[in-house]
């Protein structure tokens, strides 16, 4: 028999309300949960299973093997992993360096200006990604807008080789992913208590010191969120390297796509590469998360 505390006659009512609340929250989260189970978890389970199967010409043979993983760690593929990580890291760092001043400026701007600037940041999302990449191709082409402009200004004597280079890939990657860095940074910076900066100035710190001691530590969450939003998609990017890059730098997204579509198909290999990438990213995130937790607990002490 359950004993109801005598000093709280509404205990039963509270418990019923709590149960109702729990039930409601379950009802509300169920669609999202089901969606994630069917369209994220189930496909990943299939990918995991496929990564241990044997490749056939058009499909797979249901014979267990570790060949796909063995192949994934050969020098050629490890080099592809390295190139992909280098590209993602470089894109993230450049997006941060370019995005922080922009987010800072927007956060400190007047409301009217702020809204206009935010619209400018969001506008590229209204255009299809392929169209935007093709615009860059036209812009960077040997006889493109950029080269013609520089030639007409007399700044160069012959066209620059930008298209089909690593530089072109970096330029387009930064252009595409920059909004993903600016928006989280802006949302954190906007909530910043600017009086802290004034206080630090009053206490004798210059602007640079104030930035590194106050603004930067307080915008850590925005940097973390923006970094993730840029780094993870940049790691598996396929379209940009394929359309503006060159054969000498083949990235993971391109290799996986090739394994999926080419004949003979090698879906186990594509699955193994995807899962290896996923595991590396997961480990990377865990490390960052623990470092973040550590620094947070240190601050609280």
């Amino acid at each position, binding site marked *: 028999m359950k004993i109801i505390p005598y000093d709280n006659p509404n205990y039963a009512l509270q418990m019923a309300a709590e149960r109702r609340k729990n039930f409601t929250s379950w009802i509300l989260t169920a669609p999202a949960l089901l969606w994630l189970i069917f369209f994220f978890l189930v496909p990943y389970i299939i990918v995991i299973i496929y990564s241990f199967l044997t490749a056939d*010409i*058009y499909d797979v043979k249901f014979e267990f093997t570790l060949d796909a993983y063995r192949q994934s760690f050969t020098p*050629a*593929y490890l*080099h*592809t992993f390295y190139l992909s990580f280098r590209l993602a890291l470089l894109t993230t760092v450049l997006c941060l360096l370019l995005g922080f001043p922009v987010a800072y400026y927007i956060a400190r701007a007047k409301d009217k200006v702020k809204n206009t600037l935010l619209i400018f940041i969001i506008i590229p999302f209204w255009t299809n990604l392929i169209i935007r990449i093709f615009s860059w*191709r*036209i812009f960077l*082409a*040997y*006889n*493109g807008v950029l080269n013609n402009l520089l030639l007409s200004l007399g700044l160069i004597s012959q*066209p620059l*080789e930008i*298209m*089909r*280079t690593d530089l072109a890939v970096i330029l387009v990657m930064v252009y595409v992913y920059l909004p993903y860095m600016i928006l989280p940074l802006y949302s954190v910076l906007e909530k910043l208590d600017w009086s802290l900066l004034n206080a630090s100035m009053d206490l004798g710190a210059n602007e640079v010191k104030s930035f590194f001691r106050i603004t930067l530590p307080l915008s850590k969450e925005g940097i973390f969120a923006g970094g993730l939003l840029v780094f993870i998609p940049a790691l598996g990017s396929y379209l940009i390297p*394929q*359309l503006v*890059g*060159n*054969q*000498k730098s*083949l990235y993971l997204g391109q*290799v996986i796509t*090739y394994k*999926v*579509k*080419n*004949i*003979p*198909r090698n879906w186990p290999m594509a699955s193994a590469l995807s899962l290896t990438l996923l595991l590396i990213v997961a480990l990377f995130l865990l490390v960052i998360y623990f470092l973040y937790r550590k620094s947070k607990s240190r601050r609280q002490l």
Partner: protein
Amino acid sequence: MKRGNIIVLIMVIVLLFFCGSCSKNKPVLYIFNWSDYIDPDLIKEFEQQNKCTIKYSTYDSNENMLTKIMSSREAFDLVFPSGDHVTIMCDAGLLEPLDLTKIPNYRNLDNNLLLKATSFDPGNKYSLPYFWGLTGIIYNQRYVPESVVKSQSWNILADNFFTGKNKVTMLDDAREVVGAALIYNGYDLNDTSAEALAAAEKTLAEWDKNITQFDSDSYKNEVPDGTTWLAQAYNGDALQVMENNPDIKFFLPVEGTSLWMDNIVMLKSSKNKELAYKFIDFLLNAEIGKRNTEYCRYATPNKAANNLLPDTIKNNALIYPSEEYLQKCYMINALGENVKKIDKLFEAIKLN
């Protein structure tokens, strides 16, 4: 007021629902074809003639097409695979045998080409030739001196003139790339013997120093704009580009090349077979075939259409090469398990 708004909203939804269902009365034909491979006016014409809608999608490689068909929920009616992929699709049980009584214009097709097509479709049971063509080299003479391309050999791809310039592309197709190296070394492009592949590997390693990208589509824009100076290309694509730019030139390599035939096939899963038959017959009509050939700039297997073509096309050696040259051309056949050897070689070059 609130109730009035709700009633209006319900009426709008009902109206939209009925509009949607009205448009469904028009039969729909789903076509999956290579990019830039049909005169768009012909699609409109067929739609008007047959009071139907054509949903037209494109692909840039046989592999992409096959992946989409095997994994997609979309039910296409007609597809245009190359010869080796007709075999693959047939083996996979994807194709509907064609009822030739429903295609009266079938008689317009060239018997010699139908005979050639039996190498991948015995008895022409599942496919009919659509266009055939050859692979060669396109270049921009504004940037590539005549002395470099004078030999008209596949080995121009290894010329020191291109080294370090990022200006050469090849097709993103293992059979075409490895095939070119095999032909250059005097082998059939379907040869997968250790000796043949070793020779091809050596050649590809030389070419790879100059190759910027493997891409089956971009050269159409990149050769004219100077981003790419020289590329492995399909003859019809090259001729389409040449029409608008006098600086663009194309040649068929002296050693020979791949000869491919793209074909019309009907999928078993087709939901509108009668309309699909009408469309096949429409394409095989002599006048329609002529117009389509003039647009696509590929060699037509339609003899009746061929007779109507202007001499500028009929006598163009880049579209219809001499019999002597055709002796050096090889049809890409399905290789079964041996395709893995070709792929291994191609991948080694890509990942190098």
